[in-house]
């Protein structure tokens, strides 16, 4: 069946039920026509399980991060209508009832991540506080009528969830019939609460028993800024009239700043709200946690290369601040890696490596031999071993296993030492190596960090740290190293502890030492008054200081810094210097950028710069080759084909958005791109 028609734009194709394949998601694995088909299944499974792990991990992180916020919100909600619970009739309370309890939730500009937060929030609320939660979005509520409709629809549906399912139909119908107004909402609320009251406790469901007798109705405005002010104002004014009948609580999701409430609502309206402010975690901290938990850990065998990480971070920082997008990018990295790298089958947990290495086929062994890092490794071996590595598959497998295990150990150590180094660099003035650990991580991945100027200057600065700072940092390092799973750090820990005790010993000796060091030059300085002598003494002073014997503390400080330096040099070797790094590190930054941060405009321009296009499209150019003086006189002879091609070229340019009809004269077009009218 063709999909061309002059009367139809949509075509549905349904295969006969016999032919229709059962939806098997695993059916679409890494089968690729050009690739060898072996291991693809295994690779796909590994990829999927890895991704699922990471996904659940990120969700867990998100939940943990939001926990504090959600707890605060829940306690606020339970407080907000406590008076209503007790059914007090005091006058003061009534006055207070005119105010709607409102939570202003400042969530930050990463709007796309808010969905997850709100979903978590409404789940928590429904579990703990009230079954009546309505989530409203600005795009559904262009007017107050739509808002009420949406609100009631959601509230009555959630009522069904609590109720037994048998009377679903009648509610469904009534929802359509009911006039959407506040009184009908109140009568609905009354009826539901009475129903639950009258029900015997035994019949109640577990979930509803956790709620109070008259649970509040929570209305969440997901994106408060996008609502029209009129709708918001109307809703607030109307509902404040009924607040003593309907225990309403509002939650505003705010992307910018709490000031927006006052800008959107006039004083007369905002005075009807009793606002409490809640601040969610900033997206940057969220990202740091994610990077910390996903990348700087040895739990996951898959790693990101420097360029790739940089691309992802740049997209985050310069485009959207969206952690979800970052994770999406990460997912794409995983998929790309497992799809394009046949050896990624070895990118698995340590326990599986042995089995997988030994089941490698000959072709895969050849793939290993083709890896640049492996070739570099082979060249360094003596000739006998070289031949073995290049010809003997089983020897190669043994060696591969060893190398992979080495790589794993390397990574464990890398992370611990990176954290230690970060302890130092993050407290230096001006942060020569960056404030965040991700910056340090990128720097270390990029090249040998100890060869960079920034590292040099941070060591300089570290040599000037005072004692208390130094001691606390050393203590932190010791903690990190103890917590790390690397086995090589016993000596390092010992050494650091030794430093710590030395510092403690110093404290005692220091006081007496300090006194007799340099009082005299200072005094001399005060005596001399004339310029020449002053200059001379200052020079002498400088000279003496240079040659001056260092205090014990200073010597110790130098030792500490040197030791840290030696650790860095030993463990923070960039990953691409390691053999077989291609198996676990994903480095195709260009691919990633192309898929996530594409530039369609550039692609179009590049293509249009292609002379081929001109030759094909523009009739004048086409004709110029044949008859240079193609003017009005010769236009009669214009070939039909060229004319047709010209017409098409114009249509295509219109489709591409370069020109549009000017409407000023017939046939005239206005240029749209490259600075048109």
């Amino acid at each position, binding site marked *: 069946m063709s*999909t061309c028609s*002059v009367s139809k*734009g*949509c*075509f*549905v*194709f*349904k*295969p006969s039920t016999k*032919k*229709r*394949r059962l*939806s098997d*998601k695993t059916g*679409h694995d890494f089968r*690729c*026509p*050009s690739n060898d088909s072996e291991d693809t299944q295994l690779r796909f499974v590994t990829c999927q399980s890895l991704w699922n792990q990471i996904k659940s991990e990120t969700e867990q992180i998100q939940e943990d991060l939001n926990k504090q916020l959600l707890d605060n919100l829940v306690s606020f909600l339970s407080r907000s209508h406590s008076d209503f619970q007790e059914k007090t009739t005091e006058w003061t309370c009534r006055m207070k009832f005119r105010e709607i309890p409102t939570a202003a939730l400042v969530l930050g500009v990463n*709007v*796309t991540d808010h969905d997850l937060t709100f979903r978590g929030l409404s789940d928590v609320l429904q579990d703990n506080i009230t079954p009546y939660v309505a989530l409203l979005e600005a*795009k559904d509520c262009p007017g107050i009528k739509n808002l009420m409709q949406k609100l009631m629809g959601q509230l009555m549906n959630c009522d069904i969830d609590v109720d037994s399912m048998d009377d679903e139909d009648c509610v469904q119908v009534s929802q359509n019939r009911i006039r959407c107004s506040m009184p009908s909402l109140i009568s609905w609320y009354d009826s539901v609460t009475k129903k639950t009251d009258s029900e015997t406790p035994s019949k109640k469901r577990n979930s509803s028993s956790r709620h109070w007798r008259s649970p509040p109705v929570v209305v969440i405005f997901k994106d408060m800024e996008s609502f029209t002010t009129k709708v918001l104002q109307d809703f607030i004014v109307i509902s404040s009239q009924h607040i003593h009948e309907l225990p309403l609580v509002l939650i505003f999701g705010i992307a910018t700043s709490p000031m927006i409430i006052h800008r959107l609502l006039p004083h007369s309206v905002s005075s009807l709200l009793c606002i409490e402010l809640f601040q969610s975690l900033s997206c940057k901290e969220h990202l740091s946690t994610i990077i910390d938990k996903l990348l700087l850990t040895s739990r996951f065998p898959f790693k990101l290369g420097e360029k790739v990480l940089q691309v992802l971070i740049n997209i985050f920082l310069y485009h959207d601040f*969206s952690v*979800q*997008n970052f994770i999406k990018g990460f*997912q*794409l990295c995983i*998929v790309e890696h497992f799809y394009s790298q046949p050896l990624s089958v070895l990118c698995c947990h340590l326990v599986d490596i042995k089995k997988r290495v030994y089941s490698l086929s000959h072709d895969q062994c050849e793939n290993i031999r083709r890896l640049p890092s492996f070739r570099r490794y082979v060249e360094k071996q003596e000739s006998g071993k070289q031949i073995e590595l290049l010809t003997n598959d089983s020897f190669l497998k043994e060696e591969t296993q060893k190398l992979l295990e080495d790589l794993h150990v390397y990574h464990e150590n890398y992370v611990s030492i990176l954290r230690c180094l970060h302890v130092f660099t993050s407290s230096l003035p001006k942060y020569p190596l960056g404030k965040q650990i991700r910056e340090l991580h990128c720097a270390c991945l990029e090249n040998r960090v100890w060869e960079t100027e920034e590292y040099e200057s941070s060591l300089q600065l570290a040599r000037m740290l005072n004692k208390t700072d130094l001691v606390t940092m050393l203590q932190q390092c010791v903690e990190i190293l103890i917590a790390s799973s690397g086995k090589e750090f016993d000596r390092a820990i010992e050494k650091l502890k030794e430093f710590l005790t030395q510092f403690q010993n110093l404290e005692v000796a220091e006081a007496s030492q300090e006194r007799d060091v340099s009082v005299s030059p200072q005094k001399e300085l005060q005596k001399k008054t004339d310029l020449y002598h002053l200059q001379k003494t200052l020079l002498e002073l400088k000279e003496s200081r240079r040659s001056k014997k260092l205090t014990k503390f200073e010597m110790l400080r130098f030792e500490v810094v040197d030791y840290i330096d030696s650790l860095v040099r030993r463990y923070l070797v960039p990953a691409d210097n390691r053999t077989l790094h291609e198996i676990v590190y994903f480095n195709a930054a260009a691919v990633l950028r*192309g898929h*996530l941060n594409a530039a369609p*405009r550039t*692609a*179009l321009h*590049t*293509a*249009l710069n292609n002379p*081929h296009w001109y*030759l*094909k499209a523009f009739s004048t150019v086409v004709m110029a080759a044949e008859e240079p003086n193609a003017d009005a006189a010769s*236009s*009669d002879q214009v070939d*039909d*084909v060229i004319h*047709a*091609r010209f017409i*098409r070229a*114009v*249509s*295509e340019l*219109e*489709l*591409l*958005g370069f*020109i549009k*009809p000017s409407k*000023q*004269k*017939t*046939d*005239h077009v*206005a240029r749209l791109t490259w600075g048109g009218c």
Partner: protein
Amino acid sequence: MSRPEGMRSSRHSLQVKFVPDEDVLKHITDDTGTKVRKEKAQLSVSVKRFVKKLENISDNEAQEILEEKNYVAALGICTQDAVGNGSNISGGEVYSFQTPKRSNKMAELASELAQTPEQNVSPDHSKCPEKMAKTPQNSKLSSSNRVQQTSKKKEFVSTTPYRLRKRLAAPDPYLESESEYSASCSEEEEDEEEQKEVSTIISDQKTPAKTKAASTPPHRNSLAKKRKAQKMGNLVEEYFEAHSSSKVLTSDRTLQKFRKRRLNQQTLYDLLKNAPLAYAAEIRDLNQQHESLFSKWMLQLHLGFNIVLYGLGSKRDLLEKFRTSLLQDSVHLVVNGYFPSITVRSILNSITEEVLDHIGTFRSPLDQLEFITKRFKEDSSLELYVLIHNLDSQMLRGERSQQILAQLSSLPSIYLIASIDHINAPLMWDQAKLSLYNWLWYETTTFSPYVEETSYENSLLVQQSGSLALSSLMHVLHSLTLNARGIFRLLAQHQLEKKDNPSYPGLSFQDFYQQCREAFLVNSDLTLRAQLTEFRDHKLIRTKRGADGVEYLLIPVDDSTLTDFLEKEDEDV
């Protein structure tokens, strides 16, 4: 007016006798050295003559003027090298005669010169015939040109007496604007006698055109820097010039004047089909590369991404190939976004009606979307591939349409693969929509012609053959009564008769009624009105009131379509 620094120094350096200048000139042009020297001798004479005048000028004034000159130069007002006389390189660029302001100045100068004795000018005149030919101005002007040029030279040699130079250098572009200020009335009186001096110089000068030509390069070199600034100024000026008038100038050469007949869709298509496709082999290779990505797309679709294709060239064939090779066994929906009357509603309808076999209508697209969402969530075995050609088409690019499509695509069991072509297509999506779409971008530049995409007659140029309009016309009319068809026919015939009259307002109602009565088509004007309402509802006719309040009827279809229609009608009858 022009009293540059060089002036003052020249006063002091009279004793030095131009040695540095000579050096400079030698340094720049070796071969013309002798000629320059000759000229120099003349200059020294004139210098002596006017030296007393120099002293009249206070240093203060000179300084002021200098500053002004710098300022003006920096502003870049002195420009016009583009309009300059091409053949006369330095002259054309340095003194630009063609600007209106300048030509005024020139006219003034010319009229002044006209008062000078005729004989003084004429020899000069005869000396430079080629100059005459080049300059559009009168002979006196051209002579003044020469004066300027020589004087200009002198200025650089820095020996000319101030007063004289001032007069002569008036058209100096750098000084143009200040010339208006400094030409005070008192000086005006001196003009006459100065003129004489000028003319004497002119007559004295035996410098042939050659000298001038030879001596131009130095100007050029010394002015290189200034000209750079000039160019900058030029750009600025051109910019404002280009944007000063909102009226866009377009040519009158329309396709109507083009004697070629207009091609209709079918002939166009046939012609293009026969046209050889350039670089077919390369394009095929390119497409094969894209096709190797199919399995990857399939995988990524299943992993929750949606795919968007961009790049030059029609991606329709590529997607079709994807569809036929991989989607044969699954439910899929193809949407031609370029279809002129596609709507989100029709997309949603085909999902609910054909994919989900739902009978019934929905109040709004949002309700429909909700229904689809619910169904897909309930039934996890339900899967749908959606292919949208040109997601960025006129009809689908609206905010609401995109929102709905984005929400649709965010369903885990709906896999969307779409193509975009418009250069600004990504602007349709904000962060929220982008995250719903969850795009993976693929550049698939195919270089294939947009045959299908541009085949509908909503395309901008030429081919309004009206075959669609014609068929809709036929359809509507066939459902009407015989009388109604007759009425319409009458109107159409009348319109065709008047097709040569460009200001034809339409047929007035009264005339029309008369004609219809005569043809026994209606019996009262009420029945005619009822008929017309029917036509109007189907957009077959348009009515408008003329200046005299009479109602005019018009068929809003072009003549060729109308002719076709009448022919077809004749066949039927």
